[in-house]
């Protein structure tokens, strides 16, 4: 952990409100971006803002759980943001009249729910952890941080097509390996 981050973490642990404001200044846009991508199509701007606020409230209350040996403060905050946003999305989707745009676009009336068995999930973990660069970065940016193909392409300085091709190959490889080992994806209508 660098000195600047250590000072910030110490100040948060000492409940200095200035540090919370600093945390929001420093990482607010990244948190807002992730939350808004996860909530895209499920809520209003006010929901995103409320969720971002919840992320920082939670960070303030749980700062003692931050372990610098496991990653940076930013990663810890983003992981926190992701799971709070997923909770909010689940709640919003349960509300009448709310439709997840991606889901409805993806399969219309014939929505399939793809689920992985516990065994397949473990297999998936091994395959993801075995990814080499730049596939690993592309995978995390797309599926963990919900970035668009365009965002990933721009960040890595490659074409959209190159990102799409790599994602296609990753999906194909994962699917084939899962099927080879009899732990394929179950599609439930």
């Amino acid at each position, binding site marked *: 952990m660098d000195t600047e981050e250590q000072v910030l973490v110490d100040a948060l642990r000492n409940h200095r409100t200035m540090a*919370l404001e600093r945390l929001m200044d420093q990482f*607010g846009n990244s948190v807002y971006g992730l939350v808004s991508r996860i909530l895209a199509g499920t809520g209003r701007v006010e929901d995103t803002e409320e969720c971002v606020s919840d992320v920082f409230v939670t960070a303030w209350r749980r700062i003692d759980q931050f372990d610098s040996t496991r990653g940076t403060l930013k990663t810890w905050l983003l992981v926190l943001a992701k799971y709070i946003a997923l909770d909010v999305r689940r709640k919003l989707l349960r509300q009448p009249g709310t439709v997840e745009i991606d889901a409805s676009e993806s399969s219309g009336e014939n929505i399939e729910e793809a689920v992985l068995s516990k065994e397949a999930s473990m297999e998936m973990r091994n395959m993801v952890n075995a990814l080499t660069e730049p596939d690993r970065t592309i995978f995390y940016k797309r599926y963990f941080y919900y970035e668009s193909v365009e965002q990933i392409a721009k960040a890595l300085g490659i074409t959209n097509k190159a990102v799409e091709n790599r994602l296609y190959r990753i999906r194909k490889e994962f699917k084939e390996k899962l099927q080879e080992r009899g732990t394929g994806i179950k599609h439930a209508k």
Partner: protein
Amino acid sequence: MQNRDEDKWLFDWTDSEDPQELKGLSSVQPDEETGPDDKAWHRMKKRTFEKLGYPERENDLQASEPLMQENRRSRRRVVGKWLAAVSAAAVICMLLISISPDVQAQLKKALQFIPGFGYVQQKDDSAQPVFVLQKPVEFQGEYDTVTIDGLVIRSTGGEIALSGDDLSDKTDDSIILSTAHGEYEFKRGSASWGSGGPWEAGYYYQGQIPITALSQVKLRFGNSVVPLDLEEAQSAENMISFGPSDTQNGIRITGVVTRLDGQRVKVNLLTQLPQLQIVDSFSKEPITGEQKLEVTDSNGKMYEVLKDIGFVKPRDILFDDSTGGAEHYTLTIPYIRVEDMGVQHEKVTLPVPQQGSQNIHVTSALDGFPVDFTQVERVNERTVRVSVDVHFDAAQSKTLQSYRLFDQDGFGISHTSKINEQTRALEFEWLDVEPGQKEITFYMGEPQIVIKGPWILRDLH
């Protein structure tokens, strides 16, 4: 065109997966976002502090400009990323060679120079010697050349420093060191990089690595396996035994020469300063005026010192000797600049005119150096320009050139400043104010002090 059905099960899987189980996730960051506007941030901050029971923060929040501050901070962070990495290393260095009386006594026992990392440490008392890589080793990574800048193995663990020019090579969270006794996984502890360009990463291992009579080890990085010869670290009773030294104005500088592969020569500059003081420049670039450090040989031939690419490394002096290697070199350092992070911050309060400019005579001092504020000009309703005189005088043995600004909690204040083109001393600062604000208060800290030389290190070989 993406197949969204294919995507969905992967989104679902990552959503349900414990991030701790995902290798390398911590090194992947989403892109910096532009973010919402100031008003939105004001709402979110206000709401956040209300939820925590701090409604009184409202006034402070109204007085802030979060987005502007973030944007400016972000820019500073990009520019200062290399500096920050170097500063952190320098702090470690200075801690290691601190000259408090106790440490001084210990230093008399024995010192060891750790090449690659460029610092001196107190000799390890354990029976196991400290082994190091004497000079950098390059190998072909998957995308470009990767350099092992340093490797040290102590009785309690080890450190490895890697760098490269293609970010795609900065892949693994860990690298494996193989010895005759087994394999040891070094975890990545730090990494810095530019957009698609140069990168640096530090790896560490905590625990014993049996290395008695160790001569060769292998480093596994991605698909590459690199054999390395390690040698026992050079020991000496005092700093001057590592290489030529010179002392000016109470500061000793010692040069340690390493001949790298080919024609390249590296000089590591070592200093002993109190804790929290670092040398942020040895005149590799001019500190004031046009004077830079010079390298010459016994025939008076001058060598061009290579500029830092990507990462700023003030203590590493690199040059090429195409003549095949002179017997010895002389390094002349006209000035150094020391940044002192241990100095107490000084509070300054200035009047703020509602319009136009106001001549003022506010005098303060930082670390004993006088600082005069002579004028405050209202540039617009949210900005003032402050004229400052730090009384810079390059002829003095020590003179203040600049400082950093902090708030009352000790956090750096984001602001713009202008330096004099000739002396490079601070002249103007632009600070944020609110409409109607009548006073502005800030704290000066971390003075940058220029110390006059010259330090002449002769017989470098």
